[in-house]
């Protein structure tokens, strides 16, 4: 029975060590959560401070007792923030719709239809995924400039439509739909296009939604291409808009108003994320990349 007592002692020590480990884990995780959240808190806080109060703070205050909404009014009236938002919305919607349509068609061809050279073509296709966008942007810029498409939505949208990765994702999903359904539909005399729209798309809706959301996020945050092809502020997207605001907006260094603009730009995506949290995270972990 000596052994028994010894075991018990050992076990108690192990339990204590476990507890300490757990507390340390929570502290560590909480610390990183703080680092992640703090910038969000700070932009909300600063956007609620009045211009005068902010500039009078020699030592930054962690809270404000007199929150103001004025900065948001300034953000919408003194700079064309609403225009930037609208542009981004138009850009994101058109690009995403086109991308989804084009990708669904291509994925369907790869997944369901049979034609000679399909496998070879698909391999070639996949290898396109490895082309860095930095390489192709140069010629695209020259092309769009030569076609006189700078400062147009056409110029903004067209090169942003292609996405090999999403076609790949959809094709994988389409292939999971059992062959029997296709054959059954054929026996019933359903045309390919009808089958795609009435059977494939509804069945694979979760993936299509995921792809759509990921593309919208990508569009909302895109910076490089819009910067290259737009120099007329009337066509700026939010990323370029915020850069413009930072460099020439508000006439003077009005940081609270800038922060209000930043909040306005960030909120839609955060809402989208919270609404589709599971889908977005699943889609991203399947190979999405930022940028």
């Amino acid at each position, binding site marked *: 029975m000596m052994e028994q007592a010894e075991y018990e002692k050992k076990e108690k020590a192990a339990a204590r060590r476990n507890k300490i480990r*757990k507390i340390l884990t*929570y502290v*560590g*995780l909480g610390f*990183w*959560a703080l*680092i*992640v*959240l703090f*910038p*969000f808190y*700070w*932009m909300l806080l600063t956007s609620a401070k009045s211009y005068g109060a902010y500039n009078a*703070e*020699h*030592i930054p205050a962690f809270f404000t007792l007199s929150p103001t909404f004025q900065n948001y009014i300034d953000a919408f009236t003194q700079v064309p923030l609403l225009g930037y938002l609208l542009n981004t919305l138009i850009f994101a919607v058109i690009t995403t719709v086109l991308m989804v*349509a084009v990708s669904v068609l*291509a994925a*369907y061809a790869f997944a369901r*239809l049979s*034609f000679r050279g*399909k496998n070879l073509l698909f391999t070639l296709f996949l290898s*396109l995924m490895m*082309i*860095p966008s*930095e*390489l*192709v*942007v*140069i*010629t*695209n810029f020259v*092309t769009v400039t030569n076609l006189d498409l700078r400062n147009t939505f056409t110029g903004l949208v*067209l*090169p942003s*439509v*292609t996405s*090999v990765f999403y076609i790949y994702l959809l094709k994988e999903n389409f292939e999971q739909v059992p062959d029997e359904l296709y054959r059954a539909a054929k026996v019933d005399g359903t045309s390919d296009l009808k089958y795609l729209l009435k059977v494939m798309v509804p069945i694979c809706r979760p993936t299509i939604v995921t792809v759509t959301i990921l593309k919208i996020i990508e569009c*909302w*945050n895109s*910076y*490089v291409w819009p910067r290259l092809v737009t120099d007329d502020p009337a066509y700026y997207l939010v*990323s370029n808009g*915020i850069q413009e605001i*930072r*460099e020439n907006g508000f006439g003077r*260094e009005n940081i609270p108003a800038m922060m209000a*603009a*930043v909040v306005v*730009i*960030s909120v839609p995506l*955060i809402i*989208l*994320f919270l609404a589709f*949290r599971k889908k*977005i*995270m699943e889609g*991203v972990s399947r190979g999405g*990349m*930022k940028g």
Partner: protein
Amino acid sequence: MNTNKKKAWLYLLPAALFLVCFLVYPLLDVFVYSVEEGYNFASQTYFGTGFYNFSYVLHDPYFLQAVKNTFILVVITVPLSTGLALLISVGLSSIRPLRDLFQTIYFLPYVTNTLAVGLVFMILFQKTEYTDGLVNLMLGWFGAGPVDFIDGPYWAKMFVLCFYTIWIVMPFKILVLTSALASVNQDYYKAARVDGTPKLRIFTKITLPMISPMIFYLVITGFIGAFKAYSDAVALFGTDLNAAGMNTIVGYVYDMLYGDSGGYPSYASAAAVLLFAIVLTITCINLLVSRKKVEY
């Protein structure tokens, strides 16, 4: 079945058109540009072909500065962010309550606009005539002097850039690693427990080898991503990165193409091709190493 074949091509046509126009053709063309010497953007003419563009770029102090910055950024952020993400993911998978909340919070930077939040970071780190800024206030608590992180010494700026880059890339890495950890068959841990394996040994001998493919995947994509750093730098230091001394290779490419110093697609192409060569080499080395290390 001839109509079927035609139909298949019809379905592929839109995607193929887009890809050829905006991906394949530009890819080939960029190599052509990079060897056309003295290309004039307005008249679209050039003197001859050769490697002058490359030699120009390689002798441009701005390019060399950009290469240096990019390499420092890569060397610091890739190992640090991967290690930190591993630590956080292991922590995350060891807890039950609040896990979902933490996961949601950690993912937030992924869905934020890099430019917009960069502005917040700039304000946090900036030292102006009015105020030392929040970070300096905190440094003050530990007795460290105020540093201007945005317009000050090189390493201060580099620190902010690295910090922000890590902040941005963490969500993806945490997500990939937590799902990798979750997909390890629980039976391995049970078997290890029945055999009385100590916790650390379980981690080094079972967990790490089991998720090593994902770690290597993250390292490879991390290298590629970090070499293409650009918008984070713009977000912190403004569009004129050369003046701030914080330009990156991609930034150099875009500056050559467009903007105040732009109008030289040939130089831009040469720089882009060089970047591509660097990334390709590093990726190949990575793959070779991982081939050796990940063996099951």
